[in-house]
C-alpha cells in the first residue's frame, strides 16, 4: 500500500463521515458511494485507477473554484442590476462564461499571445512538445499552440458572423410574419419549410460545391452579400414605411447604400470563400430562428398592450422594436447561443471535410483532420483541437442553459 492509497481512502472516508454528521444528505451519498466504487476500482485497476479518479476530482474541484472566483469577480465589476442577475448564475454558467471569456481573449489578441505565426514552420513534422512548443508540432512542423490560438480567432469569428446574419434575417422575418400575418406569413413560413426540409449538411455541401470553385471570387461574393443585405433590409423597410410610397422610395435608396457599404466592409475582413461559407450558414440556419421568433412573437402580439399600440396608430416598426422585441429577448438570446454552437460545429465539420476554411488558415475543424493520422500512433495531438471545440460548445451551452432557466420564469 502506497501512501497515496492510504491518504486517498482516509480523505474520502473522513469527508463522508463529516457529511453524515452534519446531515448533508447529497454530499454524503456522493462521497460514500465514491468510496465504495473506489474499493472495487482499486482492486481491479490498482493504484493507477485511483490516481485517475483523484486527478479527475481535482480537475473538477479546480474548475469549480475557477468558476466561483470568476463569478465573484464579475459581480464585483458589474453594475448593480447586472450583479443581481449574476448572483443567480449557477457554477456551470460561471464556468461557461469563463471559457468564453478566455477564448474571446485568445481570439482578439491572437498575434500577441501566440508565440509563433499562424503558418510559420518552425520544426520537423509531428515534433513532440518541448519548452519551445507547448503542444508539439503539426503535420508540417507548425506550432500547435499558436495555431490553436489563431484557430479560436478564425473559427469563432466565422461562426459568430454566420449566426449574426442568420439571426438578423430569421428574427426580422419572424417578427414581421407574427405582426402582419396573412399571405406574407404564409409565403415566408413555406419558404423556410422548404429550406428546413433539406438536411443541413447536405445542403451546405451542395451550396459550397456550387459557389466554392471558380465562383469564390471578389465579384461574386460582393453580389451575394449585397443581395443578402438587401433581402434583410427589405423586411425593415416594409415595416418602417408601410403603405406610404415615398417611405418605400427613401427606404430602398438608403437600403441599397447600406447594403453596398456592408458588403464592402465584409470583403475587407473575410476572403471570398469565407464569405460564401458565412452566407451558406446564414441561409441554412435562418429558418430555425424564424420559426422560434415567430412562435415567441406570436404569443406577444395577442396581448392587450399590442392592441392598445395598434389603436394608437403606431407603425409596425415601432411595434416590433418597442413592444414585441423587449418581451422576446430572453428566448432569442438563449437561441442565439444554441445556434452559435450548431453553426460552430457545422463550420468545424465542413472544415474537417475540406470544404470550409481553406489552408493555411488555422481552424480547429481542419486541424483535427490534418493531424488525424497521428491518432493511430496513440498520440493525443489531433484530440486537442477537438477538445477545444467540445469545451467551447459545452461552455456556451452552460450559459444558454442558465438563460433558458431564467427566461422560463422558474423561481428558487
Amino acid at each position, binding site marked *: 500500500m502506497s501512501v497515496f492509497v492510504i491518504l486517498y481512502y482516509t480523505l474520502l472516508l473522513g469527508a463522508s463521515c463529516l457529511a453524515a454528521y452534519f446531515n448533508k444528505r447529497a454530499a454524503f451519498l456522493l462521497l460514500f458511494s465514491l468510496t465504495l466504487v473506489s474499493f472495487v476500482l482499486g482492486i481491479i485497476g490498482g493504484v493507477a485507477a485511483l490516481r485517475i479518479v483523484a486527478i479527475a476530482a481535482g480537475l473538477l474541484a479546480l474548475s469549480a473554484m475557477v468558476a466561483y472566483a470568476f463569478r465573484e469577480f464579475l459581480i464585483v465589476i458589474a453594475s448593480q442590476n447586472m450583479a443581481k442577475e449574476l448572483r443567480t448564475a449557477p457554477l456551470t454558467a460561471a464556468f461557461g462564461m469563463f471559457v468564453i471569456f478566455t477564448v474571446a481573449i485568445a481570439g482578439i489578441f491572437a498575434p500577441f499571445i501566440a508565440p509563433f505565426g499562424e503558418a510559420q514552420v518552425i520544426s520537423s513534422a509531428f515534433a513532440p512538445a518541448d519548452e519551445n512548443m507547448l503542444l508539439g508540432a503539426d503535420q508540417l512542423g507548425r506550432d500547435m499552440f499558436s495555431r490553436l490560438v489563431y484557430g479560436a480567432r478564425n473559427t469563432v469569428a466565422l461562426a459568430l458572423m454566420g449566426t449574426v446574419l442568420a439571426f438578423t434575417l430569421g428574427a426580422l422575418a419572424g417578427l414581421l410574419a407574427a405582426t402582419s400575418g396573412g399571405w406574407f406569413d404564409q409565403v415566408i413560413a413555406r419558404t423556410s419549410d422548404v429550406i428546413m426540409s433539406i438536411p443541413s449538411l447536405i445542403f451546405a455541401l451542395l451550396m459550397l460545391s456550387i459557389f466554392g470553385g471558380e465562383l469564390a471570387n471578389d465579384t461574386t461574393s460582393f453580389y451575394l452579400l449585397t443581395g443578402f443585405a438587401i433581402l434583410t433590409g427589405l423586411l425593415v423597410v416594409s415595416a418602417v414605411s408601410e403603405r406610404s410610397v415615398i417611405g418605400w422610395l427613401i427606404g430602398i435608396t438608403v437600403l441599397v447604400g447600406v447594403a453596398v457599404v456592408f458588403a464592402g466592409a465584409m470583403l475587407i475582413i473575410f476572403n471570398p470563400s469565407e464569405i460564401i461559407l458565412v452566407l451558406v450558414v446564414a441561409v441554412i440556419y435562418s429558418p430555425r430562428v424564424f420559426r422560434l421568433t415567430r412562435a415567441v412573437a406570436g404569443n406577444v402580439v395577442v396581448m392587450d398592450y399590442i392592441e392598445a399600440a395598434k389603436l*394608437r396608430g403606431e407603425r409596425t416598426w415601432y411595434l416590433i422594436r*418597442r413592444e414585441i422585441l423587449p418581451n422576446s429577448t430572453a428566448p432569442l438570446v438563449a437561441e442565439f447561443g444554441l445556434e452559435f454552437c450548431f453553426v460552430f460545429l457545422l463550420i468545424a465539420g465542413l472544415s474537417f471535410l475540406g470544404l470550409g476554411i481553406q489552408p493555411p488558415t488555422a481552424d480547429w475543424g481542419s486541424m483535427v483532420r490534418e493531424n488525424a493520422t497521428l491518432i493511430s500512433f496513440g498520440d493525443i495531438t489531433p484530440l486537442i483541437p477537438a477538445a477545444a471545440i467540445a469545451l467551447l460548445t459545452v461552455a456556451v451551452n452552460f450559459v444558454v442553459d442558465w438563460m433558458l432557466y431564467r427566461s422560463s420564469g422558474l*423561481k428558487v
Partner: protein
Amino acid sequence: MTKKKEVLLKIRDLKIQGYSDETWIDIIKGVDLTLHRGEVMGLIGESGAGKSTIGAACMGYARDGTRISEGSIEFDGMELTTASESERRALRGSRIAYVAQSAAASFNPAHKIIDQHTEAPLQYRLKKRLEAQEDAMDLYERLRLPNPQEIGFRYPHQVSGGQLQRAMTAMAMACRPDLIIFDEPTTALDVTTQIEVLAAIRDIVEQFNTAAIYITHDLAVVAQMADTIKVLLKGEEVEEASTKEMLDNPKEDYTKSLWAVRSFESPQRYRPKDGVPLISVRNVDAAYTGGEKVLDDVSFDIYEGMTVAVVGESGSGKSTTARVITGLLPPMKGEVLFKGKPFPASYRDRTKDQLRQCQMIYQMADTALNPKVRISEIIGRPAAFYSGLKGVALKNRVDELLDLIELEPSQYYNRYPPELSGGQKQRIGIARALAAEPTFIVCDEVTSALDQLVAEGILRLLDRLQNEMNLAYMFITHDLATVRSIADEVVVMQHGKVVEQGPKDEMFKPPHHPYTDLLLSSVPEMDPNWLTTLLEERGVDNVGDAASARIDPNDPKVTGANA
C-alpha cells in the same frame, strides 16, 4: 344544522416567507386558524393579503419561491410542517382537496373530465374504475350538472365555465375529503352562473359534512357560504367572527371600510335635450371571420360627458361592440358615427385625430401594459405620439398625468409595470388613455379583476376625471353594483342584441325586461340568507342558464320593450 365540534385543522402562529430581491420577506405574519369538522370558514381580504398562501399552507404546501418559516399546521392530529413530503402528498386529493379559481386552466384539456375525476380514487385505491365513475355521475347529479351520465365523457373545453367549476368541485369530492379549499371558485364567472355554482357548492358541502375554507374577495358571496369569516390584511388577521356577527357588527375599522364599499354612487346625469351624440352606434351587425353573427342590429347613443354602462353575461357581445367602435372589428352592416359624422370602419383608415378621440382601458391591466417598458414611456408615448411633446415638456406632461391618477410622479416615473399592484397598474392604464386627451373612453370591465376597495378607488377616480374633463365613458361590465355606482344610462345586452336601454334610475325600477330582472336578482347581497331565499323563490333548478332559457319569448316586455 348540528356540527360535531371536533377540531380538524389547527394553525398556530403561521409565518410564511417569500423570496424577492434576494431576501426572504414575511408575507404571512403569524396567523392562527381553527377549523372544526363540517365548518365552512371564509377568508377574505384584498389581493396580496395572503389568502391563497394560507389556503395552500393548509395542505402543507408552499408555492415556488415561498417557504413556511415558523408556526405549526396541525391537520387531524398530524403536524404538516414537519411531515415528510410523501406523507403530505398522501393527504392531498384524498383527505384535503383543492378547487382552483380558474377551472378552465386547471383541467387538463387532453383528458376527459371523468378520467381526471377518477384519477385520485384510483391512485389511492379507494375504488375500482367503474365504481369511481358511477360515483362521479352521482356527484354530477348532486351538483345539478345537466346530463350527469354523459357530461363526464366530454373534454373540458366542451362544457361551459360554470359547469366546469362544478365538475371541479365534484372532482374535489371524489375521495370524500375532510377538508376542501375553495380558492375564489366563482370570481371568474358572471352573476347568473355564479349562483348555480354557489348553490351547488353549498349543498354538497352540507351533504357530506365537509369542512371547507372559502377564499374570496367578495363579501356578499362569502356571506352566503361561510359559518365564520376571517378578515385578512397584508398577511395579518384583522378579525374573526361568525358570519352573522361579522355582518351586523364589525369591530375593526378595516372591516367596516370593506362593508362600506358599495355605498359610492355618482349623481345621475341626463342627456342634453338637443344635441348630437358623441358616439352613435347604428344598426350594427358583426361577426368574427367565418363565425356566426355575434352582434345583431345593435344601436345606442353615447352623449358627451356621460357614462353608458353596457351590461350582460359573458358572450352577450359587450366587448365585441367595443371592438366595433374602436375599429378593431369592422361591422358587417351598420355604422358608427362620431359627432354625427361616420367613423371609418377599420382603425387603419382612421386619422391620427380620430384615433386620439377614442381610447380604451382594458380589463386585465397585466396584459394591457407592456411589462418591459417603463411607466414614463407607457404614459409618455401617447403624449409624444399625438401632441409631439419632447424633452422637458413631455416629462412635465407625464408628471401631470401621474398626479392626476393620484400616484407620486417621482416614485413611479422609472418603474416597470410588474413592480406595481393591480390597482396601480389599472391607474397607469387610465393615465395612458388620458394622455391622448380623448373625448371618449371605452372601459372594458376595468374593475372586475380588482378587489372591492381598490375597484372603488378606480371608480371614484374615473368619476372625478369625467367631471373635470367632460369625458364620455362606455362602461362594459357584468357587475351591477358597478353600474349602480357610476352609470348614467344602461344598455342591457343578451345574445348579441340590445334587450333594454334607458337612464339608470328607470332601469333599476320595475317593471324590467325579464332578462334584466334575472341579472338584477342574481347579484349577491350582504344578507346571509339571500341565497336561501332566492333559491326558494326561484327553485333550485331555475338558476343560471336554465333561468335565462326560461324567459318566455312571448312576454310583452320582450317583444315590444324597445319600441
